[in-house]
C-alpha cells in the first residue's frame, strides 16, 4: 500500500506576511479583534473603534441607501474636516493684518508650485453650504424633524446658520476688492438693526438725557467690525471668529447633533 503523503497547501508570501503582521504584539495592541468578517467582529469593530463608534452596530436597510439619505449630512461633516485641515495649512502662511493679508494670499498663489490648498478651502466651503442646504431639504422631505427629533432639527438649523457665518467671515480674509465689498454690503445691514443699529428704527429713542446711546461708533455694526468701516479691526475679528470661535461652536454642536441622532432612535424611518 502506497504511503499517501498529506501536503499542506503552501500559502503565498503576502498571505504569510499578513498573518505574521496581524499576530505581532503591536498589531494586536491596536486592533483588539480580527477583521470584521463575522458577526461577532462586526459588533466589536463598532464598539471598540473610536472613529466608528458614532455608528450603531446594525441599521435599517433604507438608512444605508443613497435613495433615502442622499449622503448629504455625511458629506457636510466630511467637508468640514477637509476645511479644518486645509484651513490649518493656510494658517501657517497667512497673517491677518492689513500689511500682509493680501500679499500672503498672492504668495500662496504665486510661490507654491501646484498649490491647491486655497482652492480646496474655498470650493470646499461653497460645497459645504450646498450640502448643508440639501441635507436640510432631505430631512424636511422625509419628515425627519418630527417627534422625537424636533430638538435635533433645531441644532441643525443653528449649524446651518453657523456654516453661513463661517463662510461669510472667511470671505473677508483674502483682503481683496471682492472680500471687503462683500463684507461691507453684508455688514451694512447691521447698521439698521432695530434699536441696536444707529440707522435702525428705535435707536433714536435710546437716549440718556441729551446723550445718544446708539451711534456709529458703538452700534451693532461696530461690534461686528471692530470699527466704523471694514478695516484692521474687522480683519482681526473675522479671522478669530473664522479660525477659532465659530469652528469650536460648530464642532461642539456637531457632537450634540450626532449624539442625538443616535439617542433619538438612529436614522429616521417609518414607525
Amino acid at each position, binding site marked *: 500500500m502506497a504511503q499517501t503523503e498529506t501536503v499542506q497547501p503552501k500559502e503565498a508570501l503576502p498571505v504569510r506576511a499578513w498573518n505574521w503582521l496581524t499576530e505581532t504584539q503591536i498589531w494586536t495592541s491596536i486592533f483588539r479583534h480580527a477583521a470584521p468578517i463575522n458577526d461577532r467582529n462586526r459588533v466589536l*469593530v463598532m464598539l471598540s473603534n473610536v472613529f466608528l463608534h458614532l455608528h450603531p452596530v446594525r441599521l435599517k436597510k433604507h438608512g444605508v441607501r443613497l435613495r433615502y439619505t442622499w449622503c448629504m449630512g455625511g458629506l457636510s461633516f466630511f467637508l468640514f474636516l477637509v476645511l479644518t485641515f486645509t484651513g490649518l495649512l493656510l494658517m501657517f502662511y497667512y497673517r491677518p493684518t492689513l500689511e500682509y493679508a493680501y500679499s500672503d494670499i*498672492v504668495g500662496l498663489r504665486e510661490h507654491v508650485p501646484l498649490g491647491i490648498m486655497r482652492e480646496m478651502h474655498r*470650493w470646499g466651503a461653497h460645497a459645504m453650504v450646498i450640502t448643508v442646504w440639501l441635507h436640510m431639504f432631505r430631512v424636511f422631505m422625509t419628515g425627519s424633524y418630527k417627534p422625537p427629533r424636533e430638538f435635533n432639527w433645531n441644532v441643525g438649523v443653528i449649524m446651518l446658520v453657523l456654516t453661513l457665518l463661517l*463662510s461669510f467671515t472667511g470671505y473677508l480674509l483674502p483682503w*481683496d476688492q471682492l472680500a471687503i465689498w462683500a463684507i461691507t454690503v453684508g455688514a451694512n445691514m447691521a447698521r439698521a438693526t432695530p434699536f441696536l443699529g444707529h440707522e435702525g428704527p428705535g435707536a433714536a429713542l435710546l437716549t440718556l438725557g441729551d446723550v445718544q446711546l446708539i451711534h456709529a461708533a458703538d452700534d451693532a455694526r461696530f461690534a461686528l467690525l471692530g470699527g466704523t468701516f471694514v478695516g484692521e479691526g474687522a480683519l482681526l475679528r473675522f479671522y478669530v471668529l473664522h479660525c477659532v470661535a465659530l469652528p469650536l461652536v460648530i464642532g461642539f454642536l456637531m457632537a450634540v447633533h450626532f449624539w442625538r441622532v443616535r439617542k433619538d432612535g438612529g436614522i429616521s424611518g417609518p414607525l
Partner: protein
Amino acid sequence: MELIKTFINLFADPRLFFIMSVLALVAIVWKREAFSRNSVGYGLLAFLGVFFAFGLFDENFRLIIVKPDNVPIVALIFLVVFFTWYAVREGVRNDQRIAAGDDPIEKEESDRVWVWPDLVYTELISLILCTAVLIVWSVGLEAPLEQPANPANTPNPSKAPWYFLGLQEMLVYFDPWLAGVVLPSLIIVGLMAIPYIDTNPKGNGYYTFRERRVEITIFLFGFLVLWSSLIVLGTFLRGPNWNFFGPFEYWDIHKLEPLTNVQLSDFIWVRMLGQPLPENWFVREVFGIVLTLGYVAVLPPLMARMFRRYYEKLGATRFYVTAMLLLMMLSLPVKMLTRWIFNLKYVVSIPEYFFNI
C-alpha cells in the same frame, strides 16, 4: 439666435421670473405625477445643460457664469432641480404604494443590515468621490483674487457672498432693518419652529407628498421660490446699480431705470384726497399704520375663522404662530406685487425714525 436671446432676456425680467417660478411650483405640486416621470427629470437637466452650454457662446452670459465664485451657483441650480425632482418622485412613488394598500418603500426596507460593511463602505466611497471632485475642481479652477482691498474704490455692483444674494435682493423691496435683520431672523425662527407647529404625525421617516401636502408646499415655496430662485436672480440678473439685466444683456453701467416709486401716503393724501402731505408724521402715515396693523393683527384671527379646521387641529398658540410666520413669509411677495403693480415704495414711511415698511 438673437431673437431667442432677446426673448429670454425679456422673460428673465424679475417680475416674470418670479411669477414664472411661482407657476412652476404650482405646476410641480399640482401635476406632481407627471413631474415625477423620469423623462421630465432628465429632460429638465438636459434643458439646463443645453441652456448653459448655449449661454457659453454669448460673451455677456459667459462673463457671469465663468466667474469663479458663480460656479457653485450653476452647480446649485442643477442640484436643486435634480433633488426637488427626486424627492417629489420618491414621494409620489410612496403615495401610489400607500394608495394601493402597501407600505412605503422605507418600511419594506426596515430589516437590519450590518453597519460594517454596508454603511462603512458607502461612506468610504462617498468620501473618495467627494475628495476627487474637490481636487479636480481645485486644479481646474483657480480661487479668485481681485485687486487689493481699496476702500476708496467701490465696485459696481457690490454683491454680498452668493448665499446671501436672496437677502440682498429683498433690499429692493424692503429697508435694511427688515431685509437684513428682521426677516432673516424670522427665517431662522421659522425653520426652528417647524417641528413644533407641524403636528401632523404622518410622513415621519419616509418620502410622501399626499400625506403632507400643505407642509411640503409651503416649504418648497420658501426654499425654491423665495430662497433659491432669488439667489439665482441676484447672481445672474442683477448688474450695476442693482439694475436688472437679462442673461444675454451687456452690463451697461449707464443703464437708467426710471424711479417712479411713491409712498402710500403720497397716494392717499396727494393723489386721492388732493391735499398736501400733513406735517405730523403720525397723521401722514396713519393709513399705512392701520394697514400694517391690519396685516399683522386682524388677518390672523380672520385666518383662524377661515381655516377653522386647522385652528382646531393646531390649537390657538400653534395656529397664531404659524399664521404670523406665514404672513411674514408672504410679506415679500405682497410687497413685490404692490411694487410692480402700483409702484409702491413704502407702506409706512417715517424717515424721522428710520422706520420704513
